[in-house]
């Protein structure tokens, strides 16, 4: 038994002493939005495969973290799932994809469309039952996003509302929580990423995307910029990016990764 313990400790120490051989110029660290992270991770993997010897690490922590880390030099590149605010002008954004935001209801809900006025009334509590919005007699369960999320800010901006005016029944964090909440509740209404909702609809999850202002909520319309509600997915850098960062950003904005963008159900930017 003593020899087993010795071997265990020896093995442990060997692993401990191994250090990453790659450092400095050939390592890139990205932190920030968990929405952008899976996409950045796949782009990073593909770049690594095509350029052996480099390493790109992706970490999450939220858009604010991405901005802070990029500013303080804790990360080379920040990931942000929204456009930059005026007070963030010390950073340079590079947009790599778009993400539309659409309203969803439960599949069994007969309502086919809602006007902007109706959506506003539902979210402020002026309409509390589906029968007042063209549906059956069923109480409405309003699903809203948590404060600070870019999706919420876009929603509020589009409908000229303040968060304190919204009377939510459920508040969610991530997209998937929204999908699972709406699909489990017959009278619910929420808003999520269009790409995600399209995927779920196709795979049998009982939800339905509603058009906004009469325009159907599809990825195509987001790319054509005819859909009224969408957000940018950005990579941000402070000052001039390092050569490796520049390489990564250029790659992320190139056509070569359009398939990766679509695999994450985001929308590649339209050609100029």
């Amino acid at each position, binding site marked *: 038994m003593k020899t087993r313990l010795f071997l265990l400790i020896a093995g442990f120490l060997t692993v401990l002493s191994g250090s990453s051989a790659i450092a400095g110029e050939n390592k890139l660290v990205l932190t920030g939005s968990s929405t952008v992270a899976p996409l950045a991770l796949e782009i990073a993997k593909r770049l690594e495969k095509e350029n052996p010897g480099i390493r790109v*690490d992706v970490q999450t922590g939220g858009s604010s973290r991405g901005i802070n880390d990029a500013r303080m030099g804790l990360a080379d590149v920040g990931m942000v799932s929204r456009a930059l605010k005026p007070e963030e002008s010390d950073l340079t954004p590079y947009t790599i994809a778009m993400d539309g935001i659409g309203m969803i209801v439960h599949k069994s809900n007969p309502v086919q469309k809602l006007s902007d006025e109706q959506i506003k009334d539902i979210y402020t509590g002026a309409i509390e039952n589906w029968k007042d919005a063209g549906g059956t007699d069923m109480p409405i369960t309003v699903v809203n996003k948590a404060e600070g999320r870019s999706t919420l800010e876009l929603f509020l901006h589009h409908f000229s509302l303040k968060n304190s005016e919204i009377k939510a029944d459920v508040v969610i964090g991530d997209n998937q929580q929204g999908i699972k909440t709406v699909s489990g509740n017959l009278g619910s209404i929420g808003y999520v990423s269009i790409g995600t909702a399209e995927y779920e609809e196709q795979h049998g999850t009982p939800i339905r995307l509603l058009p906004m202002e009469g325009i159907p909520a599809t990825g195509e319309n987001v790319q054509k910029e005819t859909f009224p509600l969408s957000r940018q997915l950005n990579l941000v850098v402070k000052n001039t990016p390092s050569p490796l960062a520049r390489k990564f950003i250029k790659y992320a904005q190139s056509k070569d990764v359009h398939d990766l963008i679509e695999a994450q159900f985001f929308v590649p930017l339209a050609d100029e």
Partner: protein
Amino acid sequence: MGDRIFSFIVWTSAALVGSIFLWILGDIVLKGFSHFSLSFLLEHPEDAGRSGGIFPIIISTALILLVAIGVSVPFGLGVAIWLAEFSKQSGKAVSSTRLTLDVLAGVPSIVYGLFGNAFFSIFLGLGFSILSGGLTLACMILPVFIRTAETGLSSVNHSWRAGAAALGMNKTAAIWHILLPSAAPAIVAGLVLGIGRATAETAALIFTSGYVDRMPGSLMDSGRALAVHIYDLSMNVTGGDSAAYASALTLIAVIIAFNIMAQTMTDQWLGKRVQRA
């Protein structure tokens, strides 16, 4: 209330809890089985984890667990022994240490994650690494383990300590040869709870051992833990549900493996050398 009614209540409660557990386990198996396979265990993740496998993630998880247990168990045992044997039971030191540990057990997991990030990753310079994650987990396991092990040690029959002293053993020998072995069930309980806490932790690890799903080359590399992977697949990535449930199945296997290891190692080291009087 008669004896029969009481035992009926005990059996029914146990059955109720058991069936809910089976319900949850069944849900995981049903939703994860189709995605699960040997190649799932041995391949690297692809397409944001929706295809391919989870091999590097299993390795990262095991390494994080080993660091966490390797640090917290010796440390925790030492403190538990001190609390039970060496300190003055009525002293301020003992009661304030116990109180401190109880409070530590209640710090929210996300606070530990932020603390671990600030202290281990930034202040100590470990960055996003398995070491950073393991040490943060060790902080979380410590209070639970110490508390449980200590109650085991202090419930050992006083006459045994007296007997050991009468035989001329010093305290250290008495602890090593008599008290620890007889407190073994409590120590195992503490270990099991600690392992459970470690495998279940998500929020703390996102900020310390990180998100990278590559095979770690050393303890200083960032590595994704299974719980973090399950979270990402089910709450963040579109279409990752079946892979999430399959990963959950794997995690269950990892938990069982570590628990068996904990039981056998404790049995071996502390031994069933002690027959209860």
